[in-house]
């Protein structure tokens, strides 16, 4: 087989995430490519969660619809998972876990709870038993399991490591090899590789950029950015401050930025709503600001732990008044890393708010990736402006050709700095002047936007030379769209992915689509926000939308079928 899809389900609190990461790492270390989604309910215990891991010889960046193996730690929601099996799929369960559930065809009954008890005297090591079983079934050598488990429990001490190893070994030995083994990757995968999710990549991007102040209020699916930064903060001289609310978070981020630190805050849609006044304040005071919005389905509390791309309109328009801003939408782990660094750079260069738009799917999906290079991100710290750029007395909002004024940082220049959220003079004092108003609006919006447009990131095109039809998307859907494109190459399909959605790269978009007959916009939302944006900014009307708004990401198979359906309807 050239790929295997594994799903493990269980209750919240059963340790699925640790198991998933350990399993993913074992395959990665064995030279396979992996892609893993997390499907969790918004609860701490009980319910039914799962992760689905795609292991492949070739790089993968999207989930499949069906699984070859479903392993159930708990039998409560087993019926829904049965449906996820493909024709040859097998369900692995411990019939005793659900009061001796009768074993059906395609099911393999393994008493993993008992194996755990026998091996370690405790049922709680069942996850590692299962890890051993799955490794054996898919032809993984035990060494890969071993190194991965040692890593997973390295902070827990030798005895915990040993128990988990015993449990895994018992599971491994108990399992007769079952025919799912995969052939070697060809060409072999370069090592070492990282196993990372989007949030982790953004944390590393922020640190590489020299971010020193981070503040946020917890909100899924952004919270792991805060916890990871908190873990790393101390030795890097970084402050991680939990704010009393998102309004405070954004205003703290601005206060720190004004005083000279690269600062960051992150949240999800509900928190971003509260932050919009701060986005506007950043625009008015021309204070650099970077916000990560990891989207989840709304409105209101919505689906706290699921995915959607429905805040595009919100982040582009959020913040009252008119001012330049930038919205970036990474589509891969590497982009999540690099664009975070780029966000700091652009926020500072133009003294504007920059929003990085991700979603639960990118934030929490773990993908194997080549090592990321921090030298591709420019770090910076507070410095006085070049004397040559200054006029005296210093004017924070001095009118310039580019719209950007030399940014004085208090105590780093030998004069005082006034910044104001009211309409203000060049000096930064409150004004009611109509003339000044017009010049300041031109400075904050027109001039800066014009400069920003000159260095807009162009949409990434793929397989578009021969294409009649382009699938268009932004953010997290890059991987799934690309793979569907590959599958449908014969139908002359290519794709465009937008890593920057604002300012909208209109000119590049028009150029890239001139010879194209059809545009199909693929979005994880209900109303086709990107499609509307394209129409508004380019006048181009797409031929169709493929939308999904059930809180789950597209699988390759689902998007494939739906794109074929759309194309079929034109014939």
């Amino acid at each position: 087989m050239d790929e295997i899809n594994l799903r493990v389900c269980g209750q919240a609190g059963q340790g699925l995430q640790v198991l998933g990461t350990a399993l993913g790492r074992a395959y990665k270390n064995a030279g396979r490519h992996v892609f893993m989604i997390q499907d969790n309910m918004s609860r701490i215990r009980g319910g039914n969660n799962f992760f689905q891991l795609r292991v492949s010889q070739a790089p993968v960046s999207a989930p499949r619809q069906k699984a070859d193996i479903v392993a159930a730690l708990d039998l409560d929601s087993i019926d829904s998972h049965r449906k996820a099996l493909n024709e040859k799929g097998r369900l692995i369960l411990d019939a005793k876990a659900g009061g001796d559930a009768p074993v059906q065809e395609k099911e393999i009954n393994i008493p993993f709870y008992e194996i755990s008890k026998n091996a370690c005297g405790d049922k709680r090591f069942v996850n590692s038993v299962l890890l051993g079983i799955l490794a054996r079934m898919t032809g993984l050598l035990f060494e890969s399991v071993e190194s991965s488990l040692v890593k997973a429990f390295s902070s827990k001490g030798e005895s915990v490591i040993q128990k988990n190893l015993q449990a895994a070994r018992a599971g491994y030995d108990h399992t007769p090899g079952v025919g799912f083994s995969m052939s070697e990757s060809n060409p072999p995968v370069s090592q070492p590789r990282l196993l990372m999710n989007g949030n982790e990549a953004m944390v590393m991007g922020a640190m590489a950029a020299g971010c020193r102040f981070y503040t946020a209020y917890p909100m899924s699916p952004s919270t792991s950015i805060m916890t990871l930064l908190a873990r790393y903060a101390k030795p890097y001289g970084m402050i991680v401050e939990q704010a009393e609310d998102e309004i405070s978070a954004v205003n703290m981020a601005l206060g720190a930025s004004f005083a000279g630190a690269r600062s960051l805050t992150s949240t999800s849609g509900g928190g971003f709503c509260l932050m919009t006044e701060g986005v506007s304040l950043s625009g008015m005071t021309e204070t650099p600001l970077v916000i990560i919005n990891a989207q989840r389905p709304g409105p209101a509390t919505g689906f706290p732990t699921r995915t959607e791309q429905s805040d595009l309109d919100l982040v582009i328009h959020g913040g009252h008044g008119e001012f330049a801003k930038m919205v970036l939408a990474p589509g891969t782990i590497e982009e999540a890393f690099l664009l975070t660094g780029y966000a700091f750079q652009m926020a500072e260069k133009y003294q504007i708010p920059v929003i990085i738009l991700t979603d639960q799917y990118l934030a929490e999906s773990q993908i194997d990736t080549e090592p990321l290079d921090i030298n591709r991100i420019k770090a910076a710290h507070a410095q006085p402006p070049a004397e040559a750029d200054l006029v005296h007395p210093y004017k924070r909002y001095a009118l310039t050709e580019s719209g950007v004024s030399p940014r004085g940082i208090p105590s780093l220049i030998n004069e005082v700095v006034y910044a104001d959220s009211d309409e203000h003079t060049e000096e930064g004092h409150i004004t009611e002047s109509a003339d000044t108003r017009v010049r300041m609006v031109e400075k904050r919006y027109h001039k800066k936007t014009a400069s920003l447009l000159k260095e807009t990131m162009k949409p990434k095109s793929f397989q578009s030379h021969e294409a009649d039809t382009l699938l268009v998307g932004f953010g997290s859907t890059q991987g799934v769209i690309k793979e569907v494109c590959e599958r449908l190459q014969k139908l002359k399909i290519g794709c465009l992915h937008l890593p920057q959605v604002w300012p909208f790269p209109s000119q590049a978009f028009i150029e890239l689509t001139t010879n194209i007959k059809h545009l199909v916009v693929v979005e994880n939302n209900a109303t086709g926000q990107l499609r509307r944006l394209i129409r508004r900014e380019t006048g181009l009307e797409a031929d169709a939308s493929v939308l999904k708004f059930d809180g789950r990401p597209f699988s390759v198979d689902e998007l494939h079928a739906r794109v074929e359906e759309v194309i079929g309807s034109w014939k």
Partner: protein
Amino acid sequence: MEISDFQSNDENAWCQGCGNFGILNALQKTLVQYGKKPQEIFLVSGIGQAAKLPHYIKANCFNGLHGRALPAAVAAKITNPRLTVIVTTGDGDCYGEGGNHFIHNIRRNVDITVIVHNNQIYGLTKGQASPTTDRGYQTSVQTGGVILEPFHALPVALVLGAGFVARGFSGDTAHLSELILKGIQHKGFSLIEVLQPCVTFNKLNTFSWYKKRSDYLHHDKEYDTGNKNLALTKALEWGDKIPLGVIYEEKKPCYADLALLPEDGLMGRSARDMSVLWDDFL
């Protein structure tokens, strides 16, 4: 330093006779005495008549959003601890719109000084009730008189663990200036609430109304600013007598101490060797 070093040339927009002038004069006097240069002083404010004050002093200024002075101020202080950070805010700005920040920044205890211009009214928006408006006072909105219980910030601050709680009167700039200096010198969150007549919209709490009730704590030789229970009793007094002066002071570790903040805060280059971190993802 001289008063002229802190003189701004921005045109003043307050009403004639406004209590804010007393606060402005007191603060300028304090800054002269304090001796740091304007470049080392950072005034942060929100929105309201009170919040315009930073424009009228020559010092760094971040005049941010209504209610949000505190978050911006504490983060700036964490970032650059060498700045002396002073917030000038109104009763609406600080206790109404910014109430949540007021609560939690007392707990956060960053070394800033907060001067609340308490005119017991929303001045800039023309006379609606503020959280501190006395019961029964009629406004264009509270047409039958205010029915809400007034918010007493000083006891709240004490209960939240504030290490410096004081009250001054804009009509006594010498006394107020002393309080502000003590507030700046106190390490941690210092709250100075100032009785400030609003000559246009508050016809009840006038200059003479406040003056008559002024009860200077330093007149009582027995008063112990380190006694929290006594301070609570005093802080709760609001009637024929209104206590003025340092109500409570306690030395305690502030945010920078507890967070082990480097002396230059977050101003320098960050360590960039991240090689050990990648190991987590291998």
